[in-house]
């Protein structure tokens, strides 16, 4: 069994305590309009093309066996539907314009990378974070990874949106020290509009999660006009009010990272640009969550 991973970030300092390695799983079943990792949603490999680097030399077209890349009037032209994601064109490009995003790792391979920074985790009280995408969509692989990491005594965090069956969450929890729980809004209709899925299952799972006693940090992306109404935030504060094991609520104001990224994938539609919420709203919201602690 292999896991499809799109990034491994070492010296990650913002996904849980201490120095961490964050492993980003590819594939997600929540499709946030503002996603800052739009390449993570699709559960397959993807070819990234950086047009700024391309000098239209034609090497990629030369090696492509499926005519998925051609040179037309001296310019590289890519046909998504013909591409088999064989990856041959990537090493042929000397300009670094092409990259295969997503790589299949065996648990052993992935673990051997994670464990290289063990000394750093121990010294700093850090560990490993499984993020995504939605790691729970590759639950079996995730469970294997969690067990290996716990066997080595590493601190483990799971970054999830919880939009999966409870049983699959329950099964991995014994090997999770900290859950980074993404909540994208309390209003079900708006949630559906913003992410393509409604939030009943998510909130139900969240309640169950809080009852298990596992440490939780809630992270809420805030996008102007989409989920930044004060009612929405009040509802979130009320929802979290009695959680005993909630150690922090982090508000993440919108950032346009995803817009630029989406433009580098011919397989992706261009992401719409949103706006960050007003800063006094963020201040107000912070107060709201502080009070409910």
């Amino acid at each position: 069994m292999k896991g499809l991973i799109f990034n491994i970030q070492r010296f990650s300092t913002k996904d849980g305590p201490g120095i961490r390695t964050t492993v980003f799983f590819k594939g997600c079943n929540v499709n946030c309009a503002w996603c800052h990792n739009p390449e993570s949603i699709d559960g397959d490999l993807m070819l990234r093309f950086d047009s700024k680097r391309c000098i239209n030399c034609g090497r990629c077209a030369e090696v492509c066996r499926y005519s998925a890349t051609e040179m037309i009037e001296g310019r590289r032209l890519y046909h998504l539907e013909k591409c088999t994601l064989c990856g041959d064109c990537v090493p042929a490009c000397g300009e670094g314009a092409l990259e295969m995003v997503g790589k299949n790792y065996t648990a052993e391979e992935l673990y051997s990378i994670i464990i290289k920074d063990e000394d750093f985790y121990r010294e700093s009280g850090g560990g490993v974070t499984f993020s995504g995408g939605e790691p729970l969509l590759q639950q079996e692989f995730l469970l294997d990874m969690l067990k290996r990491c716990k066997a080595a005594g590493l601190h483990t965090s799971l970054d999830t949106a919880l939009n999966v069956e409870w049983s699959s969450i329950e099964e991995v929890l014994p090997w999770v020290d900290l859950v980074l729980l993404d909540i994208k809004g309390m209003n079900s209709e708006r949630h559906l509009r913003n992410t393509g899925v409604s939030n009943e299952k998510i909130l139900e799972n969240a309640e169950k999660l809080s009852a298990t006693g596992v440490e939780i940090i809630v992270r809420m992306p805030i996008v102007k006009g989409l989920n930044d109404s004060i009612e929405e935030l009040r509802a979130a504060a009320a929802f979290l009010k009695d959680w005993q094991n909630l150690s922090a609520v982090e508000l993440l104001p919108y950032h346009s990272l995803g817009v630029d990224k989406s433009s580098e994938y011919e397989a992706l539609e261009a992401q719409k640009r949103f706006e960050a919420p007003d800063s006094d709203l963020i201040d107000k919201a912070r107060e709201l969550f502080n009070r409910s602690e």
Partner: protein
Amino acid sequence: MLPKHVEKSIAKWFEKDGEATFFERIELQQEAAEKYKNDAYAPRYSRILNHILENITLVIKEGENIVGDVFEIIPNDDQREWAESLSEEWWEDVSEEEKQDRIMFYYSPGWIKRRNPIFFTFGHLSYDWNAIITKGLDWHKEHAQELLDSGRYSDNKDKTDFLSGAVEAYDAHTKFIRRYAEEAENQGLKEIAGICRKIAGGPAETLQEALQLLWFIVLVSQKVAGCGVFCFDRMDQYLLPFFENDLAAERLAEEEAFGLIVEFFNKNNEILDHGDHMSQESEVVKNNLEVTYDDPNYIIIAGLLSKGVSGVNKLSHLMIRAQHEMRLRNPFVVVRWHEGIDPVFWREVCDAMRHNATVVVYNDETMIPALLEFGIEAEDVYGYGYYGCNDPLIPGKEGGLRQLWVNLVWPFELALNGGRALCAGENGCVHDPEANFGYRDRLIGLMSGVYSGDDEDNNEPESMGDFIKLYKKQLRFLLLQYMEKMEQDYLLEQKYSAGRMRIEDLFLQGTIDEATNWIAGGTKYHKITMQGSGMATAVDSLAAIDLAVFRDKKFTLSEIREALKTDFKDREDLRIYLDSLPKFGNDIDEVDKYATVVTNAFCDVVAEMNETRTGLYSYMPTLSTDRDFTGMGACLAATSDGRRAGEQISENQSPYLGADHSGVTALLNSVAKVPFDRITGGPLNVMLHPSTIDGDDGLSKLAALFSVFMKRGGMQVQLNVVGRDELLDAQQKPDQHKNLCVRITGYSAYFVQMGKIAQEELINRTVN
């Protein structure tokens, strides 16, 4: 909080005109050189010094507790022309052989041009500062006088001249300090006058007196005699008794001590200009008439006193705090890390570093074994220090810098091509096949030419083991050749040097007792620092041969050789392939193991040189390029790491520019695999974005990051927290900044992977 007058002085310094010159010095020096031209070298040297010190303007600024400065003017055209003509007279149209008679070692043509050969010193050393402040100038003078009177050297005129020159030179210092006492008295500064009078001849008793005496010595040595780039040795150790006595006698509060330290640090900065001596083309460097204008001084703190005994004390804390609050380029503070270092102190160090204070960290745990291997005795080893550009030394027991920058990539080229250069310069690299270790190369200590290798018995290698043997054989051939010639040079130098007392000989251990300058053997240690350059390029090139030829058998050795000869002409496919192979800096063992191979090959040869040498000088290996990695790269053909002909080689201990892209822990893990317990110096620059290490929490992470690096066997680290300018640069040159990690609200991202708009947003938010 910094004292007001220091803040004012810092603000003023940033406004300082690059052409400001201590012009009196040049005029007085010329006057005296003429006046005493018939005297023997040492007395003449001291008389020139005395003449300058008797006549220069005294400067005391408002609010100062530590006084002593020089008077500067902006020279007019006539003055400038006259000064330029002196440089010509001294150094232009002078053959290298003649230069060798005058001085043995110099640095660059720009560096010597302001230096009169009869009033010359190279600096780059540490005095016995503790002896200066605890014994005083009178003691030093009397000691030289007694030796002179004892008749011990009465049959050797060089030595008696040397000693009488020394006596006069100590006197010149004393009189100069007394002039300041008078001046202070005239200005109604009773306390300062009293201090100056006391330390003009006698030892210091208080912290203020000690710092004042140190400052006068530095002012004279650095600004008047041109002896700069000092190591101040372990200042937190030798000043501690003064500080503690002051506290016990309730003469001084801790905050006042802090103020004095800040003043002293600032004095070191104040006397320098903005020029960067490594950029010969910059205006400031071209026009500057000073002998020392970009010569940072190094202060050593913390570290072990002996096995298991930490030297961290109250002064270490005050000094790191001073450095943190001042954030000046000079002086450098070198913190010696060791296992079990006080965690509170370590946090303070990391906090100063993340605010870009000029702090570098060295690891006692690797340095001590390395120094022991390369000839430092157990009784001295815990006292090691550093001076400018990361050269190790034993303070007070050795003289100035002698070095050779060793191009570690060159023997790779020779190994690949039977001991001969791969091309004759037709690919845009500067290949002069006639170049060799000529005088000039030896004098400036730079191996950046094309040196012929050993072209006998080079069978085509059949395994990686064979190839490594060839690499080592060529490296050994080159360095032994160098040593042979250098030993002849130094014999000549010793002959020429007899009786030539220079300022540093006054304050080193052994020189006065032996009545011999350090060059000719007065001090205990003599060494040439062998600065190994381009380690990562050599490592990546060897690894590529291993992977492409011997492991994967994708290409033959001769195929690669032919492609490199033509700089990959018609073989871009091969270049792209080689470029895509794993590189040093990403924590990949199959590549990183060549860091051990290259380092051990280098250290083995240096160790062999030490065993077989017949001269006075021993050799010490470092991994350091300073900034000549472009010059060295220009001489090299293409390499099997995918580097094109003439392109730069890797810098210091770092991976090749932009080759590390797996995060800073991966970088540090790779570097820590270098067997540093055999390497005695050289820097590693780590770049981080402030957002990854902000807040208390971020400080803990930084402290953990660097202490793990040290525990894993890293030797040195210095941090560059990037700001706006670096981000703008990264935008222009994304390939060189792949590892630059930034934080956007709650997410982390690699800066160069972010889109233009996102980058702009971040740049706009980056203040410094």
